[in-house]
């Protein structure tokens, strides 16, 4: 009996992960929160889905919207009566958590993905997401969202944004 119950839970959790692929960061609609590496854990117990979310920047105003969107999405699932979304800080979100396939999507959206395996003291060099030129300059460390910076490509003369390395 107990084992059967566990199977049901596993199935529900898998369904949740699948649906979470459809929940996006409202400020970067091309990639999902799963691809951003922001979903740490999903547990379903007695019809309650517990979702642990790792914030990218804690002052991000989009966090509450994402929380709401997760809850709305998962209450669609049969067998889930309630959704509890919690922000957790252990492990800490780092920009290395972004899925490899999501990095290309960011680029196509005009946002340069953060460098991989960035360490303190490293120099942040950003290639233009449009022409791949390294001949770029940072115009503003803080762009329209805290997690992004505004840059300018001196080769193709386009302004663009880049996700900050968080490490």
């Amino acid at each position, binding site marked *: 009996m107990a084992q059967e119950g566990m199977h049901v839970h596993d199935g529900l959790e898998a369904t949740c992960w699948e649906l979470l692929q459809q929940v996006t960061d409202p400020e970067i609609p091309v990639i999902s929160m799963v691809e951003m590496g922001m979903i740490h854990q999903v547990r379903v117990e007695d019809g309650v889905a517990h979702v642990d979310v790792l914030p990218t920047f804690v002052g991000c105003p989009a966090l509450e919207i994402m929380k709401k969107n997760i809850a709305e999405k998962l209450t669609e699932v049969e067998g889930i009566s309630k959704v509890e979304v919690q922000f957790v*800080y252990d492990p800490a979100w780092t920009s290395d958590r972004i899925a490899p396939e999501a990095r290309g999507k960011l680029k196509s959206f005009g946002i340069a993905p953060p460098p991989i395996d960035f360490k303190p003291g490293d120099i942040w060099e950003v290639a233009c997401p449009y022409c791949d030129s390294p001949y770029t300059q940072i*115009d*503003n460390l803080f*762009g329209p969202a805290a997690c992004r910076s505004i840059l300018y490509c001196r080769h193709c003369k386009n302004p663009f944004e880049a996700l900050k390395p968080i490490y």
Partner: protein
Amino acid sequence: MGDFSRVETVEAAKQNHEYTQALTDLLFQLADDDFILAYRGSEWLGLAPHIEEDVAFSSMSQDMMGHAVMFYEMLEQLGVGKADDLAQLRAADAFRNAILVERKNGEGDYNNDPHYDWAYAIVRSYVYGLHKQVRLEALLQSSYVPLTLVSRKMLTEHRYHLMHWQVWLKQLANSTPEARQRLEAAIEKVWKDAGELSQLGPNADSIARYGLIAAEDELKQKWLTLAQENFEKVGLVWPGEPGVPAERGRHGQHTAELVQALATLSEVYRIDPAASW
């Protein structure tokens, strides 16, 4: 640091009344410092020297407000009160922020002929930011484990705030004589209050003894060493030992400027505290 063993959870902290008291005191200092300075930052909206800076400064203020929320939520978990209420419904004498962060941005009011001082904004944000860096690094060793986790998170974000202000400081320090003179005047003004930043209030001994954060002297020395190094790097004269204001913010003594700020920022919330946002 004290000889107290690590406290893993909020439930464990609540087992010891004295520990909870020291922790509560410290959390109010951390929360109120970030909250009030973020509010002052928000009062620059639409007034920063150029549009890119307007975006950057409001983004950083919002992020710092997010840090304050984390601390207020930790207080809520300890049973001190609802995070929103703690931020918006307390009287000025219940605030534990340093006086430096509550000072007005300059002459005039946000809605009435503001003539704010941009040099003061840069120096205050930078000096506070350097102190916050030292404080967050010290909190990584805190006996209260949840505090080490949020500090680690904040450090990853805070380094970008510091980089931003460093650029401003360097550029103005090496710009026109007028820029240099305004910068030096702002340093003088900030320096009169800055010494209070590393004070830990009436419960300082207990806070250090329980290993919640390093003792005042250690925080102060590390911060001053870091500040002196960075001032000299951009060619600024080191102002020496910082002063402390007449009011003692960590003891709940504040200026009329905080009273006015609280009245403004909580005006809407007070109309209907039960409203859902």
